[in-house]
C-alpha cells in the first residue's frame, strides 16, 4: 500500500485528462460491442455509453460513464456527468440484461450527476433513486467498477453491485473535496484537507467494507490495468453465476444492509 500518496493527489489523478475514461475499459474488455442508445422516454445521453457484447466469450451488458476525448466530444458528453436520461438508459439496459439473463458490468467515473435546471426539471433525483431501487432487485450479477472520480449519488446510481471494485487511483466520495471545504470551512482552497478528512481513497473504502477489491495501478500501463481488471471481473462473474437468484439478491441486500456505524 502506498500511503505516501496524499488523498488529494489521488483525487487529481482520478480527474486527470490523461486518465482513461469508462469507455476505454469497456471497449478494451468487451468484444463485438454493440452500443445501444436512448432511454426510450425522452432522450439520449452521451455521458453514458451502454450496450451488449462478449466478455471472455460470454454475453454481458456493459455500461460506462464516458467523458469524451476531444473538447467537442467533452461538451457533447457534458464531461461525463450523466443526465436523468443517462441513468434511465442505464436502467433500461439493466432490465434488458435481466430479461436475457446476462450479467451487468458498470464502469463509473464522473464528478457527479449532471447539474442543471433541465436535469432537475426531468427528475435527476427520481432517476437516481429508481436505479438504486431497481438495482437492489436485479436478478442477474452486477459488477461495478469505479475507474475515476466516483462523485456521490451520481456514481452510486450505477454502483449497487454484488461486487464493487476500484482502481487504485480512483476515488469515491459523498461530496467533492472542494464542495466539502466550501460548505464546512467556507474555503474551497482547503480541498486537500477535506480530501484527507473524507477518507475517499480506494484503500480507505476497502478497509470500511464499502468496496471489495482494489486493482493496483502503480508501475502498470493502462492496458495492463485493464487486463488485470478484466481477469478479476471474469473470476467474480464465474463465482456469482453459480449462485441461486435468491442467494445473489440476499447477499447483495445484506452487503449494503451492513453499511453504517452507529
Amino acid at each position, binding site marked *: 500500500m502506498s500511503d505516501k500518496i496524499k488523498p488529494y493527489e489521488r483525487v487529481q489523478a482520478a480527474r486527470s485528462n490523461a486518465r482513461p475514461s469508462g469507455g476505454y475499459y469497456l471497449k478494451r474488455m468487451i468484444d463485438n460491442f454493440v452500443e445501444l442508445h436512448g432511454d426510450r422516454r425522452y432522450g439520449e445521453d452521451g455521458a453514458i455509453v451502454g450496450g451488449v457484447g462478449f466478455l471472455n466469450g460470454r454475453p454481458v451488458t456493459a455500461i460506462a460513464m464516458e467523458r469524451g476525448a476531444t473538447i467537442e466530444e467533452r461538451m457533447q458528453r457534458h464531461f461525463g456527468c450523466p443526465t436523468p436520461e443517462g441513468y434511465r438508459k442505464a436502467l433500461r439496459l439493466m432490465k434488458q440484461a435481466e430479461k436475457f439473463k446476462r450479467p451487468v458490468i458498470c464502469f463509473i467515473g464522473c464528478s457527479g*450527476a449532471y447539474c442543471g435546471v433541465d436535469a432537475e426539471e426531468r427528475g435527476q433525483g427520481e432517476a437516481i433513486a429508481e436505479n438504486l431501487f431497481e438495482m437492489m432487485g436485479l436478478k442477474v450479477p452486477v459488477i461495478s467498477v469505479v475507474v475515476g472520480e466516483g462523485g456521490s449519488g451520481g456514481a452510486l446510481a450505477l454502483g449497487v453491485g454484488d461486487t464493487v471494485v476500484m482502481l487504485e487511483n480512483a476515488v469515491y466520495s459523498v461530496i467533492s473535496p472542494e464542495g466539502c471545504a466550501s460548505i464546512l470551512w467556507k474555503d474551497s482552497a482547503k480541498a486537500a484537507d477535506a480530501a484527507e478528512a473524507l477518507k475517499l481513497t480506494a484503500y480507505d473504502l476497502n478497509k470500511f467494507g464499502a468496496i471489495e477489491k482494489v486493482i493496483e495501478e502503480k508501475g502498470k500501463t493502462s492496458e495492463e490495468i485493464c487486463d488485470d481488471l478484466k481477469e478479476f471481473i471474469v473470476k467474480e462473474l464465474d463465482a456469482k453465476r453459480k449462485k441461486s437468484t435468491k442467494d445473489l439478491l440476499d447477499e447483495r441486500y445484506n452487503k449494503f444492509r451492513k453499511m453504517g456505524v452507529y
Partner: protein
Amino acid sequence: MSIFNNKTNSPDKCTCKKCGVEVESSVLSQSAYICPECGTYMRMGALQRLELIADNKSFKEMDKSMKSKNPLNFPDYNDKIEKAMTASGLNEGVICGTAKVDGNPCAIFIMDSNFMMGSMGSVVGEKITRLFEKATEKNLPVVGFCTSGGARMQEGIYSLMQMAKVSGAVKRHSDSGNLYIAVLTDPTTGGVTASFAMLGDIIMAEPKALIGFAGARVIEQTTGKKLPDGFQRAEFMLEHGFIDIIEERPRLKYTISKLLKMHSHVE
C-alpha cells in the same frame, strides 16, 4: 433557512421571518405552524409533526436511543452532534415507530431539520431501514415525512451508502405489496431526494416546499444562468410530473388517513 425565528422545539414566541409578526407558540401549534398573519409555512420539528399526524398516544418509538458515532474521526463532528441534539431535543435527525392515523395502523418516520439540516448519516439510514423492515414483516404501510439537506458529509462513504441501504429496504417493502406514502416537506434535497423521498407509491408535498437534487446555488454557479421563478418548489415538481399531490398542512392527516384506509382493504 427557517421561516420562523425559533431556536428550540417550543419557544414561547416566534417571529415570522416573512411578515415579521410575533406569534405565541401556543397559537402557532394550534394553527399547524402556519403563520396566522401571512400564511407562511413554518418548518416543524419531528415531535411537533408527530402530534399533528399521529393519533394521541398511539406512537410507539423504535430505536430512540441510537446515536451517531464519528466513524471517520471527522473534525468538529462530535461537537456538531451535541449541538444538534440540543437544538432538536432528539438523539438523531429522524424519529421512527408505529402509530395510528385516524385509527389506521402504520409505520411512520419523521425527519427533523433542526438536527444538522436533517442530513442522512448512518443512524438516519439505519433507523429508516429498520422501520421499513419491520413494516415488511408486520405488513404495515409506511408514512414517511422527509426533510433533509442531503447526505451527511462528515460520515463520508457511510453516508452515501445509506442511500442504497434504505432504497433496498424500500424495495423489499414494496415487493411485499405494502404501501409507502412519502410526504416531502421543506426542504427535501440531495441524497434523500435521490433515494427514499422519490420512491413512494404516493408522493405528497406541502405547498411551496423546496424539493430537488442539486442545490439551487450550485446550479446557478455551475450554469451561470438565472433560475426560473418557483424553481424546485413543490408546485414546480408537480408540474413536471414528479409529485402526486400537493396538500395543505391542515388537510394532510385527513388525506393520509383516507389513503391508508383504501389500501388496507383486502379483497
